[in-house]
């Protein structure tokens, strides 16, 4: 045990000696600043930025290149929550859930507190995840290998059940939105057979409808339309800010939520195919469920900011675990990081820690450094960001729309995505008028296709045996939790209906 601790200490020392070299500190800083900027600009995501920086990395040292690209990635996670909180526009997909309570806090004049909680929760999550990678990266990666298709199915089922739990207002309407989301997710090429579904021969639909155009339309554009209508074109007036820093009460509520969010982000983030948005949704729904005052959620509950922000940052960094120790990129950004390493003749895989200790530990140390840099960078910036709120809406909203269009276009350099965003803006506006919540639609949209793909794969592999879902322990546990959760939500409703009360 002592020997282990000593070697860990030596490794961390090695890591910091690499990460703290002047060049690498400068690259880390540059990456973080750039990441924050693109995070704040809605839609201009880290993938496009990392792709553009790729040729630059030819001329950097491998570890320097990784440190810079990693800085862009988690910098964007920080920045993405800023616009989510201030103007209800998620800068990144993982910040959609942050809009629910973060923006509600801003409307109450607590924008500064929300931003500070988001930054500190992210720092906490980043620190814990970095330690986890340093202490147990390879064993954690092995854990991910225990998951097979039936287990993914069970995780998706839990996610869909969580979407019901997350729903605000009418349950039938939430279910309708989930089903609509699943349906929209069906559009595109079926992975199992290669057949086109609902594409009507339109090339832009062959790969399905993109997540970002849908989310930006439903949340960003629809919100703008709604705001303009509700205020006769003047835009919503925010309550003036009374304080910049969170209160003692905020900290008391946020701290445990950030802890739980970190655990969920770390656990879900190492699974391949996982994005940073699913852990954020999961963390939010857990907070809402275990809270003794669930009605506060959606109206400015600080836990609803801390938990998802911790979860998305933890999962962003946990993605490095399978990337480095298995050579398996869990998302597009990690794939590009592998590309950047390949150019230098370094292939990440099971041997990287032994073969490239300076690179591995240097990167780990730089993660913590990057998180610290981001907090130092972002806390003083809060006063600047909140001044965004004082910009007149008639100036603000056209710029938001322009950035959304640029962001959507830059995803695939395809104008069709901009049209899809506009279409979903109109749909989102209609849904808002009819009092349908867009959040369950988005969850159905993400999880539905993954559920289908994994279910069909599970059936193919098991030869059509449905029993795999209960005989595999991981799957069985997740399904049991889902059933319990569903029961807990539905029981009160059933009891109310029986006792003759009319449910809202």
């Amino acid at each position: 045990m002592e020997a282990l601790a000593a070697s860990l200490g030596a490794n961390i020392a090695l890591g910091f000696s690499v990460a703290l070299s002047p060049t690498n500190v400068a690259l880390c800083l540059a990456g973080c600043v750039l990441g924050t900027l693109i995070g704040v600009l809605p839609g201009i995501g880290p993938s496009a930025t990392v792709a553009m920086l790729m040729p630059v990395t030819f001329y950097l040292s491998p570890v320097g290149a990784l440190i810079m690209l990693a800085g862009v990635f988690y910098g964007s996670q920080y920045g993405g929550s800023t616009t989510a909180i201030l103007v209800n526009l998620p800068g990144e997909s993982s910040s959609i859930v942050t809009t629910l309570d973060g923006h509600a806090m801003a409307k109450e004049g607590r924008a500064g507190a929300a931003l500070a909680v988001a930054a500190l929760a992210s720092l906490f999550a980043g620190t814990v995840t970095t330690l986890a990678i340093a202490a147990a990266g390879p064993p954690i990666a092995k854990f991910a290998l225990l998951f097979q298709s039936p287990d993914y199915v069970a995780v998706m089922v839990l996610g869909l059940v969580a979407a019901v739990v997350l729903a605000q207002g009418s349950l039938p309407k939430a279910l309708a939105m989930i089903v609509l989301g699943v349906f929209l997710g069906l559009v595109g090429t079926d992975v199992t057979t290669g057949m086109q579904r609902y594409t009507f021969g339109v090339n832009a639909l062959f790969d399905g409808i993109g997540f970002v155009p849908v989310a930006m339309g439903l949340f960003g554009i629809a919100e703008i339309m709604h705001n303009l209508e509700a205020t006769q074109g003047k835009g919503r007036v925010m309550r003036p800010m009374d304080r910049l820093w969170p209160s003692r009460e905020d900290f008391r509520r946020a701290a445990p939520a950030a802890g739980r969010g970190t655990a969920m982000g770390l656990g879900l983030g190492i699974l391949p195919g996982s994005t940073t948005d699913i852990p954020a949704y999961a963390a939010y729904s857990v907070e809402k469920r275990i809270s003794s005052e669930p009605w506060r959620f959606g109206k400015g509950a600080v836990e609803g900011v801390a938990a998802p922000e911790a979860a998305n940052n933890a999962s962003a960094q946990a993605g490095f675990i399978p990337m480095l120790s298995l050579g398996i990129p869990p998302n597009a950004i990690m794939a590009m990081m592998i590309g950047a390493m390949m150019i230098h003749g370094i292939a990440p895989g099971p041997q990287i820690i032994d073969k490239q200790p300076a690179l591995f530990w240097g990167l780990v140390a730089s993660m913590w450094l990057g998180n610290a840099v981001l907090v130092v960078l972002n806390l003083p910036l809060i006063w600047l960001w909140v001044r965004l709120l004082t910009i007149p809406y008639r100036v603000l909203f056209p710029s938001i729309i322009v950035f959304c269009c640029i962001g959507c276009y830059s995803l695939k350099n395809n104008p069709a995505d901009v049209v899809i965003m506009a279409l979903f803006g109109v749909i989102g506006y209609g849904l808002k008028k009819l009092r349908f919540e867009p959040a369950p639609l988005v969850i159905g949209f993400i999880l539905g296709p993954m559920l289908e793909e994994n279910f069909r794969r599970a059936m193919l592999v098991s030869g059509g045996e449905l029993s795999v879902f209960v005989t595999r322990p991981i799957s069985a546990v997740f399904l049991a939790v889902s059933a319990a959760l569903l029961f807990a939500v539905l029981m009160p409703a059933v009891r109310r209906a029986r006792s003759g009360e009319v449910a809202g």
Partner: protein
Amino acid sequence: MRIPAPALKLAAICLALSPLVAPGAAQAQAFPSQPIQLVVPWPPGGGSDTAMRMTADAATKRMGVPVVVLNKPGAGGTVGIKEVMSSKPDGYMLAMIATGAIFAQYNNPNANALDEMEPVVFFGDDPSAITINPKLGFKNLKELVDYAKANPGKLKNGNDQPGGSSHVAASVFEKGLGIRLTKVPYAGFAPTVQALLSGEVDMASIALPDVIEQHAAGKLRILGVSAKARHFKAPEVPTFEEQGFPVISGLWRVIAAPKGTPADRLKVLEAKFLETLSDKEFQDRARAAGFLVTPGGGAVAKKRWAEDDAAMYPVFLEAGLVKTRQKK
């Protein structure tokens, strides 16, 4: 020194007018006189993107103008390719095409056929391989083939969705080795490797560079590479042919221009790209990144397309994947 204001004004007017004069001037100038766009029809980060970014970076020095990579992913590569092939054929818009383009022309009505493009240069191949989870115990290809023949459909193979390169490879293997596999589709190589490591599938037909690290660490075992020669990154792995199975499958990459590009410009592009790819320093760099670069001109590229087209069409037909442009 002070520049008199009228001179500055004149300079500004000249600058402003220069685009109007440029088209005429460009005719007289040597061909690449403005940036060349190289469209990669895949998202950033994959093998094709990395290969093309390295090429573009090195070609910039040879061409004397920037060669810029632009990712336009979608519909199995057809979106980006179509955009380039429908653009003005002036040599400034190029696209990377890969083996998958052969499949696309039979499956997607929007895809371009070869006679709508002008191949410029051949980059090289990523050979396919058969890789197993070591728990399976097979030591060579023959043991696997014998088992598969005795137990048709029992071995589960991880591959792309139908039409993807590792799915095509699996179909080629089935036909060439005379075996039947249960083909389990995954979205890309990363989840396929994951499934192979976790034991969900027994084997995979993905490209060799995607499994080299796992193989070197002993987590996976490459039984054979389906190329004419062994791969420099894994010289200990024998080819299929060495083991008595003459089957070849892989993924090649080609840079192409739209049909109708002037012959003199095609010549310039071909020569400069060939110089770039043949450069010793470039080749070393590409090898370090795992790419086998075997430069060839437009004619070489056309020949490879025609050969593979002839070999793969029956495989597609048998798998029921031919939807458009049936061959007679």
